[in-house]
């Protein structure tokens, strides 16, 4: 069906993160719970870059926050399992979870502007993570021994090293966020995420509000760092071009459910879900200059008034009767390709 479905190491590399059937609900008084994420499963292997795409409000960020158990008070994980290195994160105590965050899985938050405290220096805020977790992770490739960061002073060399790693001079660690440019702030956020040598980095729309040049630089940086440090990265974005460029696998979400999950080549060359197909049509393709862009009519479903059948059915041009009454299951098409559509199951 596909020419090169999965990069070779994507089948052999050890699985770091195994997410199975995670469902997140938001509860508010006097209203039925809103299902922001329903039964999402995916697997992240060592060194893999997974692209998580979908429209605004389809549950991407919610899913990522659920992985770290950082959902706002109203949000709760109703069911599912999140295995990280064989441990179920949902079964851990808050204390143990705090250990996993940053040392195991760290996150680059959406909007670097707001994720930095404006009245404290950038270096100080990077050191925060080091001091909090009490370890000075071994210097990368320099063979320095691991130390213990008891205070911010002891963490200073490592902070400088982290800043250098993302292309900011170590001498700028004493500056405040307002003295940084937008791109630098984003770099600083990445440096912060790498502070405790995590195995998985979640980058939640790391390039929003940046211009195309800086966007390219940041993505290149993420990609370089991934190869250098052997990181696994989940890249949350709504830019398919970005995904095509740097990701190995793609998870397309729609209205809180997985629409399609496959290797990047499969998604772009042989999309099976109508939503993925329309989404690709809505993006310019430089190799086919004559093609007009087609937008998908309608709006994503409201989470408190989900359609009874397939969530995409009201907007789907190929929907038939069954689509409106019965939600489709996630079907496995072949080796590494899943799609939730009744049309796929009929094939």
């Amino acid at each position, binding site marked *: 069906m596909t020419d090169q479905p999965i990069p070779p190491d994507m089948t052999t590399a050890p699985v770091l993160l195994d997410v199975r059937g995670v469902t997140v609900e938001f509860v508010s008084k006097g209203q039925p719970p809103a299902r922001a994420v329903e039964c999402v499963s995916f697997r992240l292997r060592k060194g893999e870059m997974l692209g998580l795409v979908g429209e605004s409000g389809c549950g991407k960020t919610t899913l990522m926050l659920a992985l*770290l158990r*950082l959902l706002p008070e109203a949000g709760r994980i109703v069911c599912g399992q999140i295995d990280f290195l064989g441990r179920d994160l949902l079964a851990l105590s808050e204390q143990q979870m*705090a*250990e996993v*965050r*940053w040392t195991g899985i*760290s*996150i680059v*938050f*959406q*909007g670097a502007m*707001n*994720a*930095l*405290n*404006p*009245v*404290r220096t950038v270096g100080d*805020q990077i050191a*925060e*993570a080091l001091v*909090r*977790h009490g370890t000075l992770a071994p210097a990368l490739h320099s063979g320095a021994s691991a130390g213990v960061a008891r205070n911010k002073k002891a963490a200073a060399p490592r902070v400088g090293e982290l800043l250098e790693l993302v292309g900011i001079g170590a001498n700028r660690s004493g500056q*405040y966020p*307002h003295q940084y440019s937008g791109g630098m702030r984003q770099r600083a956020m990445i440096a*912060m995420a790498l502070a405790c040598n995590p195995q998985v980095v979640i980058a939640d729309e790391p390039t929003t509000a940046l211009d195309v040049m800086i966007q390219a630089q940041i993505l290149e940086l993420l990609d370089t760092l991934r190869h250098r440090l052997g990181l696994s990265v989940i890249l949350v974005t709504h830019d398919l071009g970005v995904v095509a460029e740097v990701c190995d696998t793609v998870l397309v979400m729609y209205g809180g459910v997985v629409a399609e999950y496959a290797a990047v080549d499969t998604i772009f060359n042989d999309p099976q879900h109508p939503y993925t197909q329309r989404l690709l049509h809505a993006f310019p393709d430089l190799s086919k200059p004559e093609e007009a862009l087609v937008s998908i009519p309608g709006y994503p479903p409201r989470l408190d008034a989900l359609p009874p059948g397939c969530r995409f059915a009201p907007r789907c041009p190929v929907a038939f009767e069954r689509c409106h009454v019965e939600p489709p299951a996630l079907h496995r098409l072949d080796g590494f390709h899943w799609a939730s559509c009744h049309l796929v199951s009929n094939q």
Partner: protein
Amino acid sequence: MTAQTDITSLSGLWRGFRGNRMGVIGLVMLLLAIGMAVFAPALAPYDPKAPVKVTIDNIYAPPSREHLLGTDDAAKDVLSQFIYGSRVSLTVGFFAAFISVAIGGWIGVTAGFWGGKVETGLMRFTDVMLVIPDLPLAVVIVALTQPSLWNIIFVIGILGWTGTARLVRSQTLSVKERKFVLRARAIGAGNGYIVRRHILPLVLPLLVVNTVLVISLAILNESTLSFLGLSDPTTLSWGQMLNYAFTRGAMSAGAWWVLAPPGFGIVWVVLGCTLLGQGLERVLNPRLETHHLAVGRQMVVSRVKGSEVRGSEGQPTDTLTL
């Protein structure tokens, strides 16, 4: 607007503050008052507590060379009383304001940060305190306890925190929703750490401004209580001077020199505090000054001396219009 004021360092704060004339005037006024209180023994020509021989000529004596501000009903030098009186007024002002701001700040941050039932409880309590009239309650408490200096400080302190609490709570509510709080939580920071390192630094400017303004309120309150006769009779404050002048016939004797100085002192300090507070507010919250997109005087390119800006017809133009 000029370059963004770096309010994160003291020198930056001073640079921003220096440009605010009213604020500087307020600071100078307050420093003068504090200086007077600190160096009272050196400045005062007489010891206000020293016994004086009273004769018919020296009660309510008008200002003269020996007594620059005249004497009161007990033939004591008014200027010396005025200078010494600043000590009590300022002491009460500062300590009571400190208590107020400490209580208000604590309640505000706790309510704002923890939310839920804690917040409901604390804020309803604040509302109750807010609607109880301060002065009658203060009078009752002081009357029931000993009217000593520390009791007055305490009473003013525990009655004046409500505004601070509401202010700090609202600021905390807005700060705690910021991304960097979530980021700190993700890093593994606990509630105490987040409050200390992420919330407080952003609430602090508000608290500083508020403290200065609360000082003036506390001084006014102290004067009011003293004027009503609810102060320690052994201490000497401006409010008490007014009380004595009022109850011992200075008015009918036409002895304006007894009434005017303490009144002037109170106005001086309160005005100084208010100007300083507003000046600090301008620096710490530049948004009060101008909208960042406003085309103010400062945004117009000023002409460099000696160079000429040519108009469309090659004529030198005087102004560069936007």
